[in-house]
């Protein structure tokens, strides 16, 4: 653990990222305290510029406080990011484990399936799914999970392929452990680091994806989110720039910090690779 922290904190960007991420988390937790009531409440006069009418970041076309929207939106963005990542991990890890551990036809089938999902344009598919299953927090999480599991499956498969022939796995097999307990008990824990690194990046892209969906009007109509704020500001950007600018900054900071933290995690978990850290295809 100590090593982990030392390696992590050696990456200055990662530390900055962690601080920003914590700030966003705190904002999300404190939203009901900072801005009691609903972020949808018409608190001031419509189109009040930042600083006027007691509104730190201005108001929107109905007089709703943009700052309150951003604070409450943090909850939704982080929630969607986290839950859809967990769901994508569940799909990706299971399929990757099956392919990597069983090999053969199972591997072939799973990989063809994964390839198919990597081929089709993911954003278009996400739009289609949310539109058809009507926009709600559940359909958004579902759509994001459906389009973001393939990289997980690939990474997990690769790990499993290399781990399954290791001695400790073979030892367990000789001992007659069931396949499931070998996969969960022996292999998975050893494959965890790349999954952890990948997760932080997946949360980031899930937040981006959610904001893009909301921007297109496919957000949950009962949930205030950052993408919604930007989308509702688009048509009046000539009148009220603040409606689009601030929520965008919020998304940017959050996604950036998650990426930085991801790199820090990667450095900390794979110190060997730290130097040549490169692109994330």
């Amino acid at each position, binding site marked *: 653990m100590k090593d982990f922290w030392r390696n992590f904190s050696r990456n200055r960007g990662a530390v900055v990222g962690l601080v920003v991420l914590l700030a966003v988390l705190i904002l999300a937790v404190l939203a009901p305290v900072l801005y009691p009531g*609903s972020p*949808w*409440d*018409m608190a001031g006069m*419509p189109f009040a510029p930042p600083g006027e009418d007691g509104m730190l970041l201005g108001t929107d*076309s*109905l*007089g709703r406080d943009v700052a309150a929207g951003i604070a409450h939106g943090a909850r939704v963005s982080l929630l969607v990011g986290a839950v859809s990542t967990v769901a994508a991990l569940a799909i990706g890890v299971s399929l990757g484990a099956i392919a990597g551990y069983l090999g053969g036809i199972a591997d072939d089938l799973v990989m063809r399936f994964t390839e198919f999902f990597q081929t089709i344009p993911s954003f278009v598919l996400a739009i289609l799914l949310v*539109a058809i299953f*009507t*926009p*709600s927090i559940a359909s958004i999480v579902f759509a994001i999970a459906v389009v973001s599991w393939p990289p997980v499956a690939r990474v997990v498969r690769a790990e499993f392929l290399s781990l399954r022939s290791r001695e400790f796995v073979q030892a367990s097999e000789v001992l007659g452990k069931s396949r499931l307990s070998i996969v969960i008990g022996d292999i998975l824990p050893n494959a965890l680091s790349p999954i952890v690194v990948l997760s932080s990046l997946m949360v980031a892209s899930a937040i981006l994806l959610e904001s893009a969906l909301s921007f297109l*009007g496919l957000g*949950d*109509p*009962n949930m205030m989110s950052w993408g919604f704020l930007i989308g*509702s500001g688009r*048509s*009046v950007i000539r*009148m009220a720039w603040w409606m689009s600018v601030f929520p965008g900054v919020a998304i940017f900071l959050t996604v950036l910090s998650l990426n930085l933290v991801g790199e820090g995690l990667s450095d900390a978990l794979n110190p060997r690779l730290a130097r040549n850290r490169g692109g994330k295809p």
Partner: protein
Amino acid sequence: MAFSRRGLLAAAAAAPLLMRVEDALAQGIQPKRGGTLNSIVNPEPPVLHVGVNNQAPTLIVGGKIFQGLLRYDAKLNPMPELAKRWEVSPDGLEYTFHLQENVKFHDGQPMTADDVVFSIMKFHMEVSPRARGVFARIKEGVAVNPTTAKFTLSAPFEPFLLMFDVTVSAIVPKHLFDGQDYRQAPAVSKPIGTGPFRFVEWQRGNFIRLERFADYWKPGQPYLDAIIYRVVPDSQSRRLALESGQVQLTQSNDIEPFDVPQMRARPNLEVRTEGWEYFGPLMWMEFNHRVKPLDDVRVRRALTMAVNRDFIAQRLWFGIGKPATGPFHSATRFYDGTAKSAAFNVEEAKKLLDAAGLKPNGQGVRFAIKHMSLPYGEVFTRLGEFLRQSFRQVGVELQLESVDVGTWAQRTAAWEFDTTINYLYQYGDPTLGVERSYVSTNIKKILFSNVAGYSNPKVDELFTQGRDSADPKVRQTAFSAVQKILVEEAPLLWLLEMSFPSIYDKKLQNVITSGSGIHACFDDVFLA
């Protein structure tokens, strides 16, 4: 009241040709021949034949190619168009139309009473559900002579004269349709009418070009050489085209409500919101009376009081349209201004809900209902959000459901909603456009019927009285009584008398001169 019964019943004798051109002359503006009017049509209409398609884009463009027997002023008094005068028999059963002389279709054939009888008795009866409902009351239609057509009703129907606008019953050439499938006939894709402009070219996705019809029956008219409707699907591009003068006229939904204030501020542009009186679009929140506690009149009244209709008109629609006062659009005949739905009053609303036994729980919520937003774009999304916050102030939780057009139509028709938004045209007369939303005989699983499921025998009776009487006085009494009952019982939550901005270059004259505004044939429009 706005309605003049003399205008409807006895216009025949006196009807002076309301030459708006002369009005213009009186103002010192000389009509000028020539010039091309560039406008916008959006969305692109599927066809241009006003008979087979009733959507706004078709009616707006097709209204230049076709004409009806009559037009209507802003107070819904009939004015001559293809009929120069008309008579109604004292018993209200016989309607005789005397046609203009020398009217020709764009293919050169003369228009006669035969075409009129064919259009009314056959063509529109077949293709238009709306016309079918009224024209089914015609017992007999005959061409007395080439310039006289006579229709005999089986029973008096006082609003009959409102049915002859080009948007309902355009006169089509019999020789191009008789004996064919009307919807598939070649004359549908190449429309031939009697209007001042003839159809010339349509590049799909690009523009529709209409040109001056040289043989038009009003000598010297139309003034414009051509009208070009450009297809511009993006609202910001439409706004730019108008601002930069590339088009001189936009209408309907071309310019978004939030852009209108800036258009008003431009010195070279005129913004008008009149010209929708003939249609009288009224928007409301639909309550499903089968869902508790919406069956309770106190709850419906309380919800009515919870909503600030002025805010909707001013802030959401940016002043385009007026707050609704009750079940009748104020331009609809027999509107009674003394019957007003409950005013905005949050405290009263809370008291009423308390009285109905709906006390707030720990979170301040009395009850929760769902709201299916009308999927017609951003402003309706904002409306849903606004209603949710308004209701929350009185302790009612409105949960928004975002649905697509298909789901909305299906679920509204199948009564599968708690509340939703809807807007209907009233077509100038309560019998034509109001009755259908309130009478119990029209509680059907069909869109635009009484989907709320409101039922009151007294209301049924009054609407029947109003429909069957040939005497406007009797009708007024019945409809006044019905409005008083409806505003008390609040079967729906009336929100907005809708309108749509017509925005045009100030050089353009005579654009809005009737109750159907932009749908007029434009034979007197000119560029000064």
